[in-house]
């Protein structure tokens, strides 16, 4: 069980926000758990005023240090615990941490994805003011790729013309992009959702385009100089795709890989099987160089054929051996005549061709088989080495396993196919091949491979003339070393676990040697898995790095849009047949840059965010990490308030769980506030204020001015072309400035602390921070973003600095953004604003305030349902509560109230209220007779007749007549709306007037600050109980405010100049300015600091200029005006 986290509010609804605010103002710690990624804005149906007020409350909630907002959080379970409730909270992954985001928008600019509707996957939230990412489930192209490449990512970058970045992204997962871009069988394209509209994106060709562009620019794909690698040595046997990928991964993980290759050139079947017109030597060499540049050794012409060779490697010091020897042993047909000259196995034939052991003119060539190898061989020989080429395959074209595109090109080049045919015998002239006897086939039922089984048609044999036959019906694995040691399956396949481990520790295998003939990318994936197994076995600590696990809880894709125009694929350039069969130069050409962009722009960006990680790289504040995962926490709270029913099951009912009274789905703003406060009121009982240190403001000292100026560049975005740097010199020249610095960020929790550092180091006694924050006062307004609030909280609330010593001015939106194109103008304006801000630091006056009053007594007028609820609510927090009513209560009610400790004065007729908030006096008359309600109404004492009310009271009599008694109270709550008519006299010199109704909507405060009316029109449909609690909550909120902080913006009356005219008291909206009677019986004005909000209207009203308010004096204004006019 973790320590107490205060009160939990479920749901960032307006009700919840108000409840949070009330509780926080009363000193309680609050956590708001919101299901969505941001706190919802005001509903559309609200008036502008409501929306504005909502924004204001939100700003206050964001600002308050006792409130924590947890977005993307769901309640998974609630149960009772000792003294509270235990809650299971699950928070979805926050890829951008709000507490570190500074809203510089660099991530937004770097994001390459542009969605069809013009938006981007990274966007700004309203509350909290941070950036957020919309990431859906894994894109289909990415899921289909065996090596987990990110096609959506690099296609998005290509569409923006950012080829270098696309290349880096490709290289992250694929060390052989140029190779794959030419020979991969692209399972990604088969899953591409664009095919539902027109055609899939040409992902493979785009990848090839990027690789070629980079190869042009750099010599080879090597990444700089060879870095010495010191990790464990691993031997990789075989330099085909599997071996190369494994070596690449091992090197990147800090291991020293050595590739041991039997042939004279690396590449395996890439070099010896695939033809140069498909895959040029240059590409292979360039990409292998890139891998070697990571620190990988290459040993050529070193075959591993026996187990002793492997033992020798181990003796050499290799910690593990990865066998990636491939499957290139041609299978025999095992028919008569196979030993004749002129009959070759496919792989060995091709190897001979590419190593320069050219064969004699081949004459009429027959190639047997239907896979890629067969087609490769056919196309290789038709180029001027053969007289004719016939391709014999036992099924039809549709069932050929070869890439259909390859088959198409082969047929274009003149290869004659013979389907549904199989050779049965080779006939020769002497020991040279002369004819092949074939038989026709027909297709029967499906066989084990899922294809229709071919069976020979009896009596359909025929002969064809042939000089050369190339048999390409499959390959066995090359694993001669494994016999007797490794577990081998049919065809020499090495048996391995999924991660490549063999039965011998330290010996792994991957690629075609474990899968049989497969594709390039499957072999790469296999090599990668084995490499990972080796890495984790020797460096288990690396397991901490998450393996890009996508959470299954992610949202699904948007449906494929139906309304975008069809756009066929951009054509991939092919050389003309007549030209290309004359040489071995590449047949397929790359996209041009323009075509590549056009093709890439067709991508639908299925997963919205493509995880290209550009934003992560762009963010200098380290706020973005795409590999964050959900967290699940079990937290302890003293009470729970449910402000959003869908989140918590309506059936759940605990004594410590309060539900906000909601009326339907969409409450009006006013209702929400009242209901929220009522819920907060309930939660106040049995909870205690958070143990916060009383804030002691420390002054940086007086004396000669040593001011530091800090210019925030908002992660560098505001300092383009050194705009801010140019201001350093002129600012340093100002008198009193000891330090000027340009900051990376002022609001970042760590980087911003440079300000405090410099203040300490240089012993500054003042600081001015020029950023986006516009003021240094304690409360927050609608302009405040989370970033601004963060800085102010850090300096003033946590750091305890005095606002007199540190001031903040806004130069970001006032000049740096609008005038950024004209440095001279911009600097001029910024300098003037900074200089005017400095005057806020140069006026230091010390006041002393009266001690704060403890809340002692509260008065409730009217024992209605609302009044009684209010009285009970207040009793928890006030030392005593007096309930006054002129109706008699039932014995039961009286007993109940006495049980609560509430003083009951009844029946008593309230006559007048005197005084101000914090020091009210209620004058009442105890009526002897116990009049019932009906009697009262008949006697006319309760009429709305105001004149009758006034005339009946002789005010002078109050002090002398013993009939009239008084009771003091800090606040007054009216339980019945008729009590509005009670006369009110604010001070000894004021005239009587009436209390008026509610001050504004959403608040139960009347026109008199400190007097609350717990009644409302019936139409609002709020219960009396809720109204009473809400009034009590509001009253407490007012009385609890800031008991031990000294407010900065407080007006102070200088007794030297005050003439007691009372104009300030008349105009003060909060009732803070009040007239008091001096010993001589004359009036003087005094301002209650607890209530003063610093508006300055009294300063304007005062005829003698007796009222002083920081940053509002005439002298201050004149100096500021001067800065702009000089």
């Amino acid at each position, binding site marked *: 069980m973790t320590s107490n986290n205060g009160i939990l509010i479920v749901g960032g609804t307006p009700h919840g926000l108000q409840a949070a605010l009330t509780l926080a103002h009363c000193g309680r710690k609050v956590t708001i758990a919101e299901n969505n990624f941001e706190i919802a804005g005001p509903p559309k149906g609200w008036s*502008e*005023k409501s929306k*504005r007020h909502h*924004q*204001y409350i939100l700003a206050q909630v964001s600002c308050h240090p006792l409130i924590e907002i947890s977005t993307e959080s769901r309640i998974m379970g609630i149960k009772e615990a000792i003294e509270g409730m235990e809650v299971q909270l699950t928070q979805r992954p926050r890829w951008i941490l709000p507490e570190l985001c500074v809203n510089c928008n660099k991530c937004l600019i770097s994001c390459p994805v542009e969605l069809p509707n013009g938006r981007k996957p990274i966007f700004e939230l309203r509350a909290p003011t941070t950036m957020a990412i919309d990431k859906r489930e894994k894109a289909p192209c990415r899921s289909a790729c065996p090596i987990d490449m990110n096609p959506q990512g690099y296609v998005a970058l290509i569409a923006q013309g950012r080829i270098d970045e696309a290349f880096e992204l490709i290289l992250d997962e694929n060390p052989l992009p140029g190779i794959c871009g030419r020979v991969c069988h692209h399972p990604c394209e088969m899953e591409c959702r664009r095919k539902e509209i027109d055609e899939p994106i040409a992902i493979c060709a785009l990848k090839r385009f990027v690789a070629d562009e980079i190869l042009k620019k750099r010599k080879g794909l090597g990444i700089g100089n060879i870095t010495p690698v010191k990790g464990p040595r691993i031997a990789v046997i075989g330099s085909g795709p599997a071996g190369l990928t494994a070596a690449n991964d091992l090197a990147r993980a800090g291991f020293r890989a050595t590739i041991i290759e039997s042939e004279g050139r690396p590449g395996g079947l890439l070099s010896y099987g695939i033809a140069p017109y498909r895959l040029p030597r240059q590409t292979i060499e360039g990409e292998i160089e890139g891998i070697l540049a990571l620190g990988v050794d290459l040993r050529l012409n070193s075959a591993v054929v026996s187990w002793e060779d492997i033992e020798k490697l181990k003796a050499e010091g290799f910690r593990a051996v990865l066998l990636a020897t491939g499957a290139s042993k041609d299978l025999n047909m095992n028919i008569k005549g196979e030993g004749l000259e002129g009959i070759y196995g496919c792989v060995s034939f091709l190897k001979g061709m590419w190593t320069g052991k050219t064969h004699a003119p081949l004459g009429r060539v027959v190639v047997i088989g239907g896979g890629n190898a067969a087609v490769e061989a056919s196309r290789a020989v038709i180029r001027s080495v053969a007289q004719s080429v016939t391709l014999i395959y036992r099924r039809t074209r549709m069932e050929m396993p070869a890439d259909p595109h390859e088959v198409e090109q082969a047929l274009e080049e003149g290869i004659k196919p013979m389907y549904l045919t199989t050779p049965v015998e080779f006939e020769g002239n002497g020991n040279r091949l002369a004819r092949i006897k074939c038989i026709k086939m027909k297709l029967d039922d499906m066989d084990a491979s899922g294809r229709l089984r071919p069976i020979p048609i009896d009596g359909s044999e025929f002969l064809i003339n042939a000089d050369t036959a190339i048999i390409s019906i499959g390959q066995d694995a090359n694993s001669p070393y494994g016999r007797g040691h490794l577990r081998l399956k049919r065809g020499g396949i090495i048996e391995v676990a999924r991660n490549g481990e063999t039965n011998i520790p330290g010996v792994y295998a991957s690629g075609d040697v474990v899968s049989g003939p497969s594709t390039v990318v499957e072999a790469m994936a296999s090599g990668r898995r084995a490499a990972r197994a080796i890495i984790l076995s020797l460096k288990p600590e690396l397991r901490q790095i998450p393996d890009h696990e996508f959470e299954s809880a992610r949202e699904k894709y948007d449906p494929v849009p139906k309304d975008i125009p069809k756009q066929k694929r951009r054509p991939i350039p092919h050389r003309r047949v007549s030209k290309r069969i004359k040489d071995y130069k590449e047949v397929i050409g790359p996209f041009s840059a323009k075509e590549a962009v056009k093709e890439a722009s067709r991508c639908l960006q299925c997963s919205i965010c493509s995880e290209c990680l550009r934003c992560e790289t762009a963010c200098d504040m380290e706020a973005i990490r795409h590999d964050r995962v959900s967290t699940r926490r079990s937290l302890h709270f003293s009470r729970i308030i449910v402000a959003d029913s869908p989140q918590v099951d309506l059936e759940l009912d605990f004594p410590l769980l309060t539900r906000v009274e909601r009326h339907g789905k969409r409450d009006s703003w006013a209702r929400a506030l009242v209901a929220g406060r009522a819920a907060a009121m309930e939660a106040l009982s049995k909870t205690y204020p958070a143990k916060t240190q009383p804030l002691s403001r420390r002054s940086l000292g007086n004396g000669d001015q040593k001011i530091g100026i800090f210019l925030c560049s908002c992660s560098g975005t505001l300092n383009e072309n050194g705009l801010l740097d140019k201001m350093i010199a002129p600012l340093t020249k100002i008198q009193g400035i000891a330090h000027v610095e340009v900051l990376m960020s002022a609001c970042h929790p760590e980087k911003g602390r440079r300000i405090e550092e410099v203040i300490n180091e240089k012993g500054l006694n003042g600081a001015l921070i020029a950023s986006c924050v*516009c*003021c240094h006062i304690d409360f927050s*307004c*609608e*302009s405040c973003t989370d970033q601004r609030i963060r800085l102010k909280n850090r300096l003033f609330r946590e750091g305890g600095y005095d606002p007199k010593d540190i001031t903040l001015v*806004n130069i*970001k*939106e*006032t*000049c740096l*953004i*609008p*005038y950024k194109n004209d440095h001279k*103008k911009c600097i*001029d*304006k910024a300098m*003037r*604003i900074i200089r*005017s801000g400095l005057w806020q630091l140069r006026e230091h006056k010390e006041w002393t305030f009266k001690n704060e009053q403890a809340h002692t007594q509260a008065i409730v007028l009217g024992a209605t349902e609302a009044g009684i609820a209010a009285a009970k609510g207040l009793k928890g927090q006030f030392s005593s509560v007096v309930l006054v009513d002129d109706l008699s209560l039932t014995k039961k009610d009286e007993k109940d109230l006495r049980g609560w400790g509430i003083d009951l004065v009844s029946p008593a007729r309230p006559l007048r209220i005197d005084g101000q908030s914090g020091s009210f006096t209620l004058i009442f008359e105890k009526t002897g007779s116990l009049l019932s309600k009906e009697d009262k109404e008949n006697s006319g004492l309760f009429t709305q007749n105001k004149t009758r009310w006034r005339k009946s009271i002789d005010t002078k009599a109050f002090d002398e007549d013993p009939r009239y008694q008084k009771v003091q109270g800090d606040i007054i709550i009216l339980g019945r709306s008729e009590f509005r008519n009670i006369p009110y006299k604010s001070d000894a010199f004021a005239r009587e007037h009436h209390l008026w109704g509610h001050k504004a909507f959403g608040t139960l405060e009347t026109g008199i600050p400190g007097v609350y009316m717990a009644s409302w029109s019936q139409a609002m449909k709020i219960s009396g109980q809720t109204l009473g609690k809400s009034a009590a909550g509001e009253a407490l909120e007012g009385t609890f405010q800031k008991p031990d902080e000294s407010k900065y*913006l407080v007006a102070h009356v200088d007794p030297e100049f005050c003439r007691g005219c009372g104009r300030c008291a008349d*105009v003060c*909206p*909060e009732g803070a300015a009040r007239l008091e009677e001096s010993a001589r019986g004359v009036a003087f004005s005094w301002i209650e600091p607890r209530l003063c*909000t*610093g*508006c*300055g*209207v009294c*300063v*304007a*009203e005062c005829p003698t200029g007796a009222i002083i*308010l920081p*940053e*509002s004096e*005439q002298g201050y*204004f*004149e100096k*500021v*005006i*001067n800065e*702009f*006019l000089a």
Partner: protein
Amino acid sequence: MNSWHRKRPILAFFCNWAPYRCYLELGQSGMVLPYSICPIKVMCAGRLDTAIVLSAFEKGAEGVVIIGCKEKECRYGPGPGQAKKISETIRGLMHILGLEPERFSMVAFSYNEKNRLFKEMKSFAKTLSKLGKSPFALD
């Protein structure tokens, strides 16, 4: 017009709340106010009185504009009413001093009216440029 702006400052008093937010949003969205507008922030438009406004003119401001909240939107209450009252006095005094009353303006904005603020400020600057140099200008 450009040099006019640099040497002919217009002081704009923004109240801290809705008008200042309006002003910041305007700047954030890249709209460029005339360079002559010099922003001064006050807590409430109700604080401004004749002394401040007239001292601005005395020191050479071409024009003064007070941007406050709307009547019912003042979070303190009396601000806009107070400012309206004082502006009548100010205009009267300006007339006596020989300043054209068009040089002073009082406008009210909500937080979401940045487009209107932009237009208003531009037209005010234009009006002043037509009026020419202030009789109290320093040069």
